[in-house]
């Protein structure tokens, strides 16, 4: 299965950061070996959908991302680009999942405490 289209219950046109705890092993022979914790970055389109690999979907489940459902398999997923070219790229709103809740992350240049007190 090349890719799976997943859907978020509420968010649209946003990035969600989902913390995976990793699998650090602490036994004698494998001390501090294994997967380190990291944020999974899920970019939702304006319908709340994102296409991910099966491996990423498995990690999201391990991380307890419960607001997602699988819509369908995608046989021909779109091409993605990693670029070193100069230019300005629009960054959608970013949210971090904390437990069952989502907390908005202030965009660059905006202090979070200013946003909280300004209502």
């Amino acid at each position, binding site marked *: *299965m*090349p*890719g799976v289209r997943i859907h978020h219950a509420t968010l649209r046109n946003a990035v969600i950061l989902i913390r*995976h705890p*990793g699998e650090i092993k602490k036994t004698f022979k494998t001390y501090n070996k294994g*997967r*380190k*914790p*990291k944020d*999974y*970055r*899920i*970019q939702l389109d304006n319908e709340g959908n*994102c*296409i*991910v*690999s*099966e*491996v*990423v979907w498995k*990690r999201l489940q391990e991380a307890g991302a419960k607001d997602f459902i699988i819509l369908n398999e*995608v046989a*021909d*997923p*779109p*091409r*993605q*680009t*990693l*670029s*070193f*070219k*100069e*230019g300005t*790229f629009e960054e959608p709103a970013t949210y971090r999942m904390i437990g069952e809740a989502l907390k908005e992350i202030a965009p660059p240049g905006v202090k979070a405490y200013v946003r909280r007190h300004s209502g």
Partner: protein
Amino acid sequence: MANSLYAGYKQVQVGDAAITGFSVVNWESDDCRCILIDSADDTLNVNTDQDLADIAGAARVAVSGAMASKTAVLSSNTVTMDAADVTLSAVSGDQSEQVVIYRHTGTEATSLLIAFFDTFTSGMPVTPNGGDIVIQWNASGIFNW
């Protein structure tokens, strides 16, 4: 870390006797490839890692074919390495944060690590979706020295 050349690559290129088992990299004719790296599975070190065996297998999400149209151009006392954009086909692994260029020999212990990238203008970290991932180099080249 930041985008960087591997220390071992620099040592090999200048003929440092402290590093053995590698021949000088001929950028234009050698088989050089890109690997997409999941940084949660290995912590890469450009100062101590030398060859492909130094990168954990679990960290290698995708490997390209041989990079095409490679050029090395000397200008104003600087050699600039460039190549055609690279396509990683049907990537279905874990989220990735880094790219490494290495010289492919078919043997991990002699496949010299060349360059490390973790800072892109867009696209990173990349969440594979089962489709192709294209690495678009800067118009001014991939790296120079």
